[in-house]
């Protein structure tokens, strides 16, 4: 599946591509309005990451063009304009999601994952990771065939981990995902640890292997044990 990153800041574009490229996704980038416009008219993408402020034109026009030509590409707007109006306007124009710069790449990863899931599998959404089955509609989790009760935070955390599997996620990214960036957490991530500890315990109790690996106290990595 292909992802198009339309972002004029080359450094940022490069980082996004580097993070999102894996065995599942191929990323391409466009740095200005014209090349972006050309790419969307030629190819179909599973997801488009779109910056609003582009040299040569507004990203919103690209979004309108996509909608006008009935393309099914999912669109995430990434913009430095952290104003509610922009957000509402972007979503009204047909974007699937909106993310304010600066963001953590795992957050973008999770959003991209969610959009692709929605677009590709229609309403029936079931996520399977090794021994874990998640029914997105009913928000139930089955581990090793056993239904496991998770709190809302644990459920969000698990979904976040699976969307960013095999990646190291920093504690700051996890905190921002679970509590939003409006809350001033004052660099105190002790309570993240509590949630991770509980999630890990529940998975182990159900009989699953330990997927969560702590990386030097800096963050966590969710992956299959090789």
């Amino acid at each position: 599946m292909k992802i198009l990153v339309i972002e004029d800041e080359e450094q940022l574009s490069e980082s996004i591509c580097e993070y999102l490229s894996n065995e599942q996704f191929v990323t391409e980038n466009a740095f200005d309005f014209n090349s972006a416009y050309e790419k969307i008219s030629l190819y179909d993408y599973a997801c488009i990451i779109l910056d609003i402020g582009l040299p040569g034109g507004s990203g919103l026009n690209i979004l309108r063009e996509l909608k006008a030509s009935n393309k099914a590409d999912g669109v995430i707007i990434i913009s430095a304009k952290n104003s509610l109006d922009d957000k509402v306007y972007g979503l009204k124009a047909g974007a699937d999601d909106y993310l304010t710069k600066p963001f953590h790449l795992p957050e973008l990863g999770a959003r991209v994952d969610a959009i692709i899931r929605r677009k590709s599998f229609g309403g029936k959404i079931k996520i399977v990771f090794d021994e874990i089955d998640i029914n997105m509609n009913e928000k139930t989790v089955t581990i090793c065939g056993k239904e496991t009760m998770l709190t809302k935070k644990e459920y969000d955390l698990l979904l976040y981990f699976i969307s960013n599997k095999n990646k190291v996620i920093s504690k700051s990214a996890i905190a921002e995902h679970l509590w939003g960036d409006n809350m001033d957490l004052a660099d105190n991530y002790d309570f993240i640890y509590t949630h991770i500890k509980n999630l890990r315990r529940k998975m182990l109790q159900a009989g699953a292997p330990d997927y969560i690996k702590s990386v030097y106290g800096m963050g966590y990595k969710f992956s299959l044990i090789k």
Partner: protein
Amino acid sequence: MGCIAFAILLRYVIISQVDDDLEIEKNEITAYVSQHGYLPGIIKVHDQYTTYKTIDKPAVTKTKIYTYNAYDSMDHEEVLLRSIQFIVNTNNTYTLINVSKSLESVDELMQTIILITITLILLILIVTFIINRIILRKLWKPFYETLESTQQFNLSDSQPLNFDNTDIDEFRHLNIILNGAFNKAQQDYHSLKEFTENASHELQTPVAVIKSRLDNLIQDENLTQQQSHSVEEAYNALNRLNKLNQSLLLLTKIENGQFSAIKQINLKEKTENKLNQFCELWQGKNIKVQKTLEEANIEMNENLADMLLNNLLGNAVKHNIYNGSVEIHLNQNLFIITNTGLNHPLDENLLFTRFYKTNADSESNGLGLSIVKQICNVSACSIAYSFSAPDKHSFILKW
């Protein structure tokens, strides 16, 4: 003083007038004598008495004018007289002639004049006062209008200050100068604000780049523990930079009135939701939370209400001590949050200013309470601080 001087002067003038009259009388008599060779007969005239007295040849024949008291046999009272005394020589008979005029009429005249004068002065004073009032009020009207507009002037308003036109040159001049000064201040303020806004906007991109680079960097499996620690510190610093930037942007946005949509908010419900969100934070410091929440509604922007509570609750955790407590009290127009903390009061004058910190190395950016203050300013409510010994700090929100 003026009155006394006036009375003396008046008296002097009148007496010299009487003296002149007496002098004329004297001249008439001397003229009569030199023409006829004998003294004229005494004619009885009201208020004037003439006496002749034959004397021996005097040593000097000087004329003498003087004032004296005499008993008036007609009116049976003491009268003040002004007399002229002179000697006339008729055929070597010397006669001392004394012509006196009563000064009583002078006194009466003076009294009348003074009375009239005083009445007139009073009348003039009253009229002047009234005219002054009317004219001054009219004259100073533009000045007071200018004062009023000045008082209503708000630096952060976008519309320029407008003064009413006036015909009075001085005030027009004043208005022009004030207008210039205020508009300059407003422009400076706006360009400064714009600068903050732009700077914050521009900062977002490099912060985004650093953040994404770090997110990629930690994917490297060969990072040593030392390097991981550095990355973690970089994350923390970046978070603080980002928070600071977001706070500055937020302040500008509130000032710009970008949160103008107002609706009725159920504060009880909102507070309870927020308390749930903060649950982990309370637990992290083992803080005991006591709440007495009554139904309360407030009219304000919902985003601002969220931020207000976030900041107040966040502060109550951040500046709290381990095993401390937080008390939250809500009623119809009051929200009080009290937390344990430092055992001395905070400086109330500085508390709500930007970048005020109780200790310099604190993790907070010192913008939280100025955001709270700013939100209160645009939402028609007020925030106050109070301290009660030994270590309780309260913030009181009123609307």
